[in-house]
């Protein structure tokens, strides 16, 4: 089970054939909302879980559903909106300023409103800026990233998106990235293995092989070399992250 953002970006279509070639193991991805993914895993209907909300992942392990968590990669969130940028978000210096500019301008903002990793991050950003988003301009849509982007495109609204989904999104119309590149916007993905004691039917061995492959030099290199429209989408950050970061994910590519 996995979140949708990784699937929408096309990462799995690129990565998994390589994995299958190396190990002969076929991976079946069920891409759903973060909450649903965790729920599927808690029911024992998956062998491994890949999401991007650290607190939920830690709780999952603490409650005994999972055994280990592996850092795999990260990317970042960006604020997209209409090119004309009525709120002047692109002029702001930091993320707090950007959020305030949107709130003060009265321009529409589309919130995922679905308790997903992205939604939780967005809420955290408002909170850190000490703002309370409320009003007709703040649209809580309760849907996936793609739906949020489709709505933003149709109505000329702002929204927070992960870079992967944004880059591979096909209905950008008048939208573009208006704000990016701050540490608060980093978005780490982790792989959690399920507890075989609790779920005896789980294919632990295959899941371990996947974790090992993803964190191996070859797996990490593959993640780093995945590109959409010549842009790198994910930065590998498994244990030896210092080293890899330098090699595959120069800080400036994300944190301009």
């Amino acid at each position: 089970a996995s979140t949708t953002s990784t699937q929408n970006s096309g990462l799995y279509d690129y990565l998994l054939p390589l994995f299958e070639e190396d190990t002969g193991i076929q991976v079946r991805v069920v891409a759903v909302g973060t909450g649903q993914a965790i729920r599927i895993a808690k029911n024992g209907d998956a062998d491994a879980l890949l999401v991007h909300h650290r607190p939920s992942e830690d709780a999952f392990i603490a409650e005994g559903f999972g055994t280990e968590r592996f850092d795999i990669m990260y990317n970042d969130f960006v604020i997209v909106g209409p090119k004309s940028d009525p709120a002047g978000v692109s002029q702001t210096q930091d993320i707090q300023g950007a959020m305030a500019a949107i709130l003060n301008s009265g321009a529409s903002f589309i919130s995922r409103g679905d308790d997903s990793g992205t939604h939780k991050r967005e809420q955290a950003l408002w909170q850190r800026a000490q703002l309370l988003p409320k009003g007709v301009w703040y649209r809580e849509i309760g849907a996936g990233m793609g739906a949020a982007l489709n709505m933003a495109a149709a109505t000329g609204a702002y929204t927070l998106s992960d870079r992967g989904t944004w880059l591979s999104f096909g209905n950008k119309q008048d939208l573009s990235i208006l704000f990016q590149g701050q540490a608060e916007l980093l978005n780490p993905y982790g792989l959690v293995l399920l507890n075989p004691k609790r779920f005896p039917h789980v294919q632990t061995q295959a899941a371990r092989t996947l974790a090992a492959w993803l964190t191996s030099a070859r797996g990490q290199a593959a993640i780093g070399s995945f590109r959409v429209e010549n842009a790198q989408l994910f930065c590998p950050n498994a244990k030896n992250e210092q080293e890899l970061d330098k090699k595959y994910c120069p800080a400036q590519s994300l944190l301009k």
Partner: protein
Amino acid sequence: MSIFTEILSFFSGSAPDLWPIVALSLHVSLSATLLAALLALPCGVLLAISRFWGRGAVLTIASAFMALPPVVVGLLVYLMLSRAGPLGNFGILFTPTAMIIAQTVLVFPIILSLTVDAVTPLHRSYKPLFSAYDAPKGLIIKSLVWDARFAITTAILAGFGRAIAEVGAVIIVGGNINGLTRVMTTTIALETSKGNLELALALGAVLILIALGVNAILHLIRRIGLRFEEAER
């Protein structure tokens, strides 16, 4: 029992917005069904009583359009109503109106196809009479719709079932905006994606209860004049 707890908490404390959601669901789906029925009933009767070249093809196409996926209808309406689209100026995208339009499109072929079959056997027995008196089309439509109201009710309820149960079209053209375009099914989909499966199921149960209410009312209405319908020797 946990389901009931979930429902109750949804009804009351944690999420007090159930009633507007239910109301909007009913408003959108009943409006769409009504609109589709107003168009499809006369068309269906005319299709049932006419013979023309290409009639078989029309019937086949109509029944094939029962397979129109809600997402596709949603997309089409989205593209029409999007600011970049031909009807973008009306600004009705992401409003209940847009949702009604999309569901009407979805429901029309269902009521149409089923109406044709609902009135065909009755028309077979009434036809000599209509023909002998050269009855006006309006009277024919009225007579067939009324006297076949049992099967026609089911046709309309099949359309209503499709409308109230679908999520693909309303989420695209409505956007599932909290307090504005959120309906039962989009809420169910949302809670599902949050992993709140029990809550989602509980909402599903509420939806079925509501559907049951609508069905019961229509089933009662169609019993008007039942003794003429059921009189048999």
